[in-house]
């Protein structure tokens, strides 16, 4: 059975061919650099670091919400990558391997900390009237652009607090998708989760973060 996909007017831009071609080229470039690095070319390793250090840091920071812990995780991650370079076969993307190592390092660091209070995801999800209607309109923040909102310190703090309250298995999926730009398929590969599990965690995490902003951001 084939299912036709609809393209809603309000849809995100579909994965464009150009975008897919760019991703493909990036992956191939990474694999070329890995091969050179495996042959002892340190400059190639360093180029891999430079290409991916920023997004690896953003993932670690989102997980840990502490700059020096995040920096340590990134350092450890690239040292791990360097040490185990010869074991990388190139069956999947270099970034899948990189983000897997980074996510594991971040999760390990989280577990060494005193347990932080984490909410059950259910308490962070929106509620509806019995007939399934929304109970209220979103606050005024929702009418602003992300570029405006990102400059608002109060909002940024609420957002980071929301990430911190997300159970970590939701947090990591949200960050990989919405910050690092991995596809659901890539995340499923990196985290060893089924695609439906990735989609469900991602969607609930997005709903929860939106809900937190709406509950806590009161400024007009």
């Amino acid at each position: 059975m084939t299912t036709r996909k609809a393209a809603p007017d309000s849809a995100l831009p579909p994965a464009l061919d150009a975008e897919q071609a760019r991703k493909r080229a990036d992956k191939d470039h990474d694999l070329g650099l890995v091969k050179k690095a495996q042959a002892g070319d340190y400059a190639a390793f360093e180029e891999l670091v430079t290409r991916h250090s920023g997004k690896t840091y953003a993932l670690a920071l989102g997980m840990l919400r502490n700059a020096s812990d995040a920096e340590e995780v990134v350092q450890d991650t690239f040292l791990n990558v360097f040490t185990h370079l010869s074991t990388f076969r190139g069956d999947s993307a270099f970034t899948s391997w990189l983000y897997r190592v980074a996510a594991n390092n971040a999760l390990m660091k989280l577990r060494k900390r005193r347990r932080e209070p984490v909410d059950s995801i259910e308490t962070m999800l929106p509620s509806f009237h019995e007939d399934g209607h929304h109970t209220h309109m979103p606050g005024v923040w929702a009418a602003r652009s992300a570029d405006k909102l990102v400059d608002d310190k109060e909002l940024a703090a609420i957002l980071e607090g929301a990430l911190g309250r997300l159970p970590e298995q939701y947090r990591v999926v949200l960050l990989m998708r919405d910050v690092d730009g991995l596809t659901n398929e890539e995340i499923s590969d990196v985290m060893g989760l089924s695609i439906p599990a990735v989609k469900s965690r991602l969607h609930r995490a997005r709903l929860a973060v939106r809900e937190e902003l709406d509950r806590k951001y009161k400024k007009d």
Partner: protein
Amino acid sequence: MKTCQDTAELLSDYLENQLPKEDADLLKSHISDCPACEAFIKSFRVASETTRKVLLRQIPQDFNHRLTSFLRERTKQG
């Protein structure tokens, strides 16, 4: 017939064109008559875009430089 709750539940799939056409059409017709859903969708998208921007802007300017220096030292290069 789709409700606001259905719309919220299916939103990621809807926005990423992952729904069967029948479901997407039903949602689309609900949303076009429902200002609360329209605003909810906008807020859902802006929240996820802001998450990305808030984190990416916190990458320190000299981060990559510090990192590559650290790695050179630890891997005994350069």
